[in-house]
């Protein structure tokens, strides 16, 4: 296991997100302080509705906090325009979703190359990286298949390869195994872990599955929009049991 470096890649400072539901205000996040260092694999855990996805969306610049500041790779997001945030997202962030979000018309290979296209790159110049990634996620002979010809696990592999194609500084994953059976889920998690190491990437993963969280170096627990617990501050992995204990406490 590589030693995580000490410089902070992603930081949330007193981040609050309030949704207006008619006349009622819902606080999805309340003054959350949170950091991810370069090279870390961090999991965010919490019961359903605790604000995990909201936090992930804010960190990735998909949405803006009501209060507080998010700094990604040294850039405070609140000071960027929408287009600038989009560019940051394109070059420095990779996303993985529970439902894969692949384009049904494109082949696996094309889906993986999509961020390059969006960035105006000539895909032809990046075939080496593309092939490396396809091999890495184990889709060597499935590159020409369209999403509806792939299983859920295979689709998620495509999504993972896509998240890494632009060599992002950080990959944000929202319940990447949530829609998969446990065996496939395990394979995906191992893949994520391996990719994180091989590509020296930073990964932030949201999950409510203790087993999934156990793959991370560090686990942050959310409840009712607040950070309530940390596990593995020393950078060591955590056992499923330890995580389940904390969760059980939270879900009371």
């Amino acid at each position, binding site marked *: 296991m590589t030693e995580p470096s000490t410089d902070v890649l992603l930081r949330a400072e007193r981040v609050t997100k309030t949704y207006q539901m008619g006349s009622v205000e819902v606080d999805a996040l309340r003054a959350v302080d949170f950091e991810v260092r370069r090279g870390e694999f961090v999991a965010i855990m919490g019961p359903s509705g605790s604000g995990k996805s909201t936090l992930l*969306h804010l960190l*990735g610049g*998909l*949405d803006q906090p009501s209060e507080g500041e998010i700094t990604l790779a040294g850039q405070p997001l609140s000071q960027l325009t*929408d*287009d600038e945030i*989009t*560019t940051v*997202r*394109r*070059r420095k*962030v990779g*996303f993985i*979703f529970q*439902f894969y*979000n692949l*384009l*049904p*018309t*494109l082949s696996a290979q094309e889906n993986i190359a*999509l*961020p390059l*296209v*969006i*960035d*105006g790159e000539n895909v032809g110049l990046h075939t080496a990286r593309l092939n490396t990634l396809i091999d890495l996620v184990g889709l060597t002979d499935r590159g020409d298949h369209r999403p*509806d010809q792939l299983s859920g696990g295979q689709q998620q592999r495509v999504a993972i390869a*896509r998240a890494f194609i*632009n060599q992002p500084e950080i990959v944000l994953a929202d319940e990447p195994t949530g*829609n998969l059976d446990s065996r496939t889920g395990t394979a995906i998690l191992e893949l994520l872990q391996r990719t994180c190491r091989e590509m020296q990437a930073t990964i932030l993963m949201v999950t409510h599955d203790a087993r999934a969280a156990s793959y991370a170096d560090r686990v942050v627990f959310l409840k009712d929009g607040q950070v309530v617990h940390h596990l593995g501050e020393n950078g060591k992995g955590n056992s499923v049991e330890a995580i389940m204990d904390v969760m059980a406490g939270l879900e009371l």
Partner: protein
Amino acid sequence: MLFNRPFLAPFAFALRNMRQRMGRTLLTGLGIALGVAVVLSIEITNVSTLDTINTVFNLAAGEANLLVSTDNLLAGMGETLPEELVDRMAAFEEVELATPTLRVNTLLASEASEWELEIGFTGAAAGTILQLYGVDVVRDPELRVYKFTAGRLPSPDAYEAVLPADYAAEKDLALGDDLVLLVPGSGVARLEVVGLLASEGVALFNNGVVAVAPLSVVQELFNHRGEIDEVGLKIVPAIASDPDALDALKDRLEERVGRNARVIYPAARGQLVSRMLASFQAGLQLFSGIAIFVGTFLIYNTFSMTVVERTREIGMMRAIGMNRWHVLGLVMVEASILAVAGSAVGLVFGVVQARALMLVTGAFLAAGDAVITVTPQALLQSLFVGIVITLGAALFPAYQATRISPLEALRARAQTGEKVRPAVWVTGLVMLALGLANIYVIPYRASVYFNILQGSVLLILAGATLTVPLVVKALEGAARPWVRRLYGGEGALGSANVQRSVGRTTLTVAAMIVALAMIVGIGSISISFEDDFTSWINASLGGDLYVTSPVKLRQSFLGQLATVEGVEAATPARFHIVQVAARSLPPETADDDDTVYFVAIEPETYRQVSSVEFTSNQGDPEANWQALAGGDAVFLSSQLAETYNLNQGDTIWLKTRRGEKPFRVAGVIVDFFAQGQTITGTYRDLGAYFSEDGADRITVKVAEGYTIDEVSQRIKDRYGEQRNLNVQTTTSFKAQIQGLLDQSLALFDVLSLIGVVIGSLGVVNTLTMNVIERRREIGGLRSLGMTRNQIVRMVLAEAFSLGLMGALYGLGFGFVLAQVMIQSMNSMSGYDLEFVFSPTPFLVGLALAAGISQLAALAPARRGAALNIVEAIKHE
């Protein structure tokens, strides 16, 4: 609460769904409304046109049940009847009242110098000419409505007149003032204004440019002593109310009126004019059909979308126990609400649109303000069409909804790949082949040809549409490199999207086909028509000057005119109205009132100043002219040649003063005057068979070494005052006619505009659906780092590819449509229009396709760009 009143639940459901998709609901409603509006406005226009014609003529007839009239059916252009006919008619005991009219055209002396020949397509003069009615001032008020705002009727035999109050005010005339009129020969006459009329009855004649004076005075002033041109007959109610009895009486009266008079129903007069408008109306009808067709598409499109979008919802409803009929009901209730609301709005649009159309038609009629007649039938019919079409178009999507299985609700994403069955495009190809064969290969009889052509157009359109799925892939593939160059990588993505829902793409392409075909077809027709028209103008409107007068010019004046310095030659023309004998009419159109213009010319002088354009295969022009000059011969317009199925060398029988007489057809010519309802003959025959002379127009050729203006001035100086002449240069006359043509073609531009709206609606509709349906996907792309601009470009690129396909099909179809429309017009009207290929309409069509697709895509593209990413990716 939704469930309080169970029987209203489907409506409540539908309304909620519609409110949720407000944009689409409005768009579809607008589509229905537009379709209904087109149908209604065209119906109104056609009815109103006929009504206007009838009103004009009926007004003049007053309460007369029958008219004794000369063969001359249009005012102020012909021969007269003896006054003693009035007594002869009054002697019949069934005749309650017989009252004479003598109508002459004249001008206010103060306006003589400004007067210009105005000419409508109907050949009827309109505008500033004052019609002076000589009537029996005692009896006429029993037949026609005189409503005074001031004063009284003229006294018998007094030099007095009554005028519409509005006209008097406009001309600054008050009671007691003199009405100063031009009269033939020389000088003017003065009639004292003794009465002013409210805008009713008599005051509406000739658009209110009218005066009424005692019969004897008008006879005297205009050299018509003892002459009248009409007797209005009021028949006793017992007979008047019984059509058969009235018809029998009409025949009995006719036996007593003598050779050159006829007894007619007042309505018969509108006929000639109506016929001239027939082809125009047929053209409008075709557009009405296309509008219905396109409307069907749009509605079908929308409901398919709604069903696709609600697949999960419907699956869920099925899962909790709704049966197929409930589902069908759900969709159809929504369709019903839209149908009724959209059609109702369409009725309002339609009336407004009809007004615009009637402005143009009014110009055709040269009848001034046209009456808009909105009949309950027209309203009901359009409403019915709107509702039936909407429900019909929604039926198939509704049926598809019933086929959704409850399992659909359980699937994470309904990703149904569309497969187009070969049966679909094979049917399309067959329809296409059949339609094209009908048009280009199979020779049909003329009488059914027009209907076959119209049917074939729809067949081709439907066929072409069905073949779209077959070629979407290939076309999109061909377009993609271009799109990539224009819009970048995201453009290629967008273009590829076209292949995703082939059904929807097909419908959009169909809308574009119709839009472009209308633009290209109409543009090509305009150009072809203009081309033909211009060559006719140049060939037939020869000479340098037209000399006309509101009163008939004498033959002797011609000789005087020829002596004016600078006049090289002068030739007269007289437009006389004649009847074609029943034996010359084709059996299916054997009504006994076929009225046309006999245009009398002097062949020898005519050829010195002008010429005619023979249609193809008319042999040696020189021989044709000789045959005409030889007498008992005529040139037939191509329209009449077609109508009567006559060719060069055949014989046409005309009713003359000496009975029915045969005339040899010496040639078939191109003639647009009076919509080609013309037979050109000689003055010799005009005199011999119709006892007519004089000229309505003299065409002058200016000798070399003289300028046209100079000669024009000389003629005006010498005769202008005295003879009330108008001298107009041929150039300005041609410009006038050209202006009239442009005005009519402007109507076509309006119709093209409808095409643009249709195409745009199709594109907006489809892309809006696509964007809505792909919210998640667009959210995903944004999360991958696509900027809002890139999303806009992606959607625009998709629209561009759609537009390109639409253009390819649409321009091809437009090419066919243009030819079909020209052939239809030819077969309907007997015009001999040639299809003239011009790249202009095609280029315009192409530019519009690009423009339409991009502009229409703008709103959906922005909508996509504005999506909240988090919302979009959450959206399930």
